[in-house]
């Protein structure tokens, strides 16, 4: 071996030069082949297609959309639908995961075992299978529009979906919104003051109950002062379908329920392992200080458990967002179904469309990991 090759630094530079050369050659090779292939097959290139007419309809869209809109609009509709189903999924899976996770820690043997069976069953079955099961089996059993299941004359369930009332905001509704804003500001300052007083004098303040009261009473006062500006638009049967109100389509429900039930198992496990990770001595210390079981949980166990549980819960939220792309199997019009599916088939510009789709998910992931990092930094044990 020549002498200069025995120097670790020289070798390091050499290795990197080789790597980067191979990488660039590889990229060049791919780029050349791709451009040649694209030319051969007569596929268009560039991002101009985003401004051409899509020409297909989308079954549900939170914003105005019609077939003469562009592919860019399709992208927006898909992204919004992804975010909507993810937001609901995060909400439902947290709720369910919390219930199951607490059940898993219950001293009641029966509840404990039922929770364990729930977790072991649903997390070991592929989520795609669960989505298909909800869509093709459970929701397919629903009756036709004429035989809708009627819940208090407010909700209706049939094979077209779940129909429910939709709030309608009239003039003055902003006053109610203002009520909420003021309530939140008030809660922020009261809790700050309560914490300060607690640290100085040791006197506790029932911050939770007071906050809840403010949060309910203030908007309620605003609601009556403004002359009841929020009404509900109820769904009603007209002709062959329901009109008015808000609709959850079977596709949406199948995706939402399957994702929530699947993700809830992981959230439940995260909550359990977070609480179990708090050393026993902490609980014993809390009890010997004379704290009640509720205080023990609220002041000693939860603050420590949250530090361990939240990062993995946030990761599960990210997985839920990524798993929502499985809607492609049942046709809920989210990003992958309509943009990386229908738009791709129409334009044939697979490379561009898939890159945009992947980058979109990547940005969402980066955003979530930013939140995670912020949380970890905030929750880091502050040592003197």
């Amino acid at each position, binding site marked *: 071996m020549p002498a200069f090759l025995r120097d670790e630094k020289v070798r390091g530079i050499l290795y990197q030069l080789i790597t980067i050369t191979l990488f660039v050659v590889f990229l060049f090779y791919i780029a050349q082949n791709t451009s*040649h292939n694209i030319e051969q097959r007569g596929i268009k290139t560039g991002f101009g297609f985003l401004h051409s007419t899509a020409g297909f309809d989308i079954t549900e869209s939170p914003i105005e959309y019609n077939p003469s809109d562009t592919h860019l609009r399709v992208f927006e509709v898909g992204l919004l639908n992804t975010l909507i189903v993810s937001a609901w999924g995060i909400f439902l899976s947290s709720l369910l995961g919390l219930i199951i996770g607490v059940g898993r820690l219950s001293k009641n043997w029966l509840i404990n075992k039922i929770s364990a069976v729930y977790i072991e069953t649903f997390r070991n079955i592929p989520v795609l299978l669960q989505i298909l099961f909800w869509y093709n089996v459970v929701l397919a059993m629903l009756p036709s529009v004429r035989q809708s299941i009627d819940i208090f004359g407010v909700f209706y369930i049939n094979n077209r979906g779940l129909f429910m009332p939709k709030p309608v905001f009239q003039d003055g509704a902003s006053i109610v919104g203002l009520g909420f804003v003021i309530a939140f500001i008030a809660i922020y300052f009261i809790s700050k003051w309560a914490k300060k007083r607690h640290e100085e004098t040791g006197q506790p303040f029932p911050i939770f109950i007071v906050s809840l009261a403010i949060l309910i009473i203030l908007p309620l006062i605003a609601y009556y002062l403004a002359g009841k500006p929020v009404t509900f638009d109820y769904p009603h049967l007209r002709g062959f379908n329901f009109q008015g109100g808000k609709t959850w389509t079977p596709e949406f429900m199948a995706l939402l329920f399957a994702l929530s039930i699947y993700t809830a198992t992981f959230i439940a496990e995260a909550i359990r392992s977070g609480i179990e990770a708090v050393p026993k001595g902490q609980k014993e210390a809390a009890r010997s200080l004379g704290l009640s079981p509720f205080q023990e949980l609220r002041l000693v166990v939860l603050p420590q458990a949250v530090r361990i549980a939240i990062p993995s819960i946030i990761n599960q939220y990210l997985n839920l967002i990524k798993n929502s792309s499985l809607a*492609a199997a049942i046709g809920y019009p989210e990003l992958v179904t309509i943009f990386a599916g229908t738009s791709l088939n129409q334009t044939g510009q*697979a490379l561009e469309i*898939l890159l945009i789709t992947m980058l979109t998910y990547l940005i969402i992931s980066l955003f979530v990991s930013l939140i995670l990092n912020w949380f970890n930094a905030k929750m880091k044990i502050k040592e003197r």
Partner: protein
Amino acid sequence: MVYPPKHSKEPPVLERGAIAWIRHNLLSSPFNIAFTILGIAILYMVIPPFIHWAFLDATFVGHSKSDCTGDGACWVFVKEKLNMFMFGFYPQAELYRPKIVIVSLLGLLAFSKFFKGRGVIKLALIIIFPLFAFIMLHGGYFGMPIVETQKWGGLLLTLVIASVGIVLSFPIGILLSLGRQSKLPIIKSLSVFYIEFVRGVPLITVLFMASVVLPLFFPEGVNFDKLARALIGITLFEAAYVAENIRSGFQAIPKGQYEAADALGLGYWQKMGLVILPQAIRITIPNLVGTFISLFKDTSLVMIIGLFDLLAMVTVTANDRDWLGMDTEGYVFVAFVFWIFTFSMSRYSKYLEKKLDTSKGR
């Protein structure tokens, strides 16, 4: 004086045996009683209907849909289509081939469990067995007719994808994790970019990429079949997750281990291969099994790019005109099969975790 010791009194009836257990675990407080009632209500709502559907009212004998007269499940469907669920469209006459492969795989697993010899032989088997399996399944040699990969399906395909994914993503993952640990900035940033990119996107977009865009990357005439494209996509995807697992193993290795390896005069590859990696992988085995469980569940996604794995086979056969409306039985069967595999894998990882935990105390 002798004081013979008196037998201590038995605990009160309420504090021993089954009664005490019930009192403590089910009825210790009013809340607890309420929860017990709730639990019984849940069980009552779920279990009897399921048992009626799956067993008591179910039909087990017969050959067609018309034999299913009960209210319950029509297991005749699963029984009649079992070969399709297991092997897809693999020709009937050649079914002995996948069967031989599966039996020899099981034999190999048992062999490696009891075999105490050198790792070199195991390594050789890891390389030889896939070749053997491919020749057996694909044919073309020794007078076995060729069976195109399009005809592979069902559980066979699921297992092929899962095992190829696991075996290939492991070495790639190791290389990526080494790259991420590396002190060389270019290699490190390339690895970090790859790992974070792949972990940030859904598998389905990677599969689309592999099935639609990958053929564009190669010169005309180079043609991957669909299965190979799916395998490339899944392997590259899971490799990033394997890399992250191994990295978490690296972080648990004390600095002294690196220094000791340096002091012994080991080079980079010797240091990593003989000292650091064996420990890092050992620590992270439970996580790796977790990743392989997700990989196994993720194989069902190949259905979306048009391969006929177990889940897709059930969806196809349930749309068969003679068997319309059999989705429920099919899905329950698939769920059961997946559950058995993933549940036993997760038990195995728990067992490993315990085993590795005790060895620390030596």
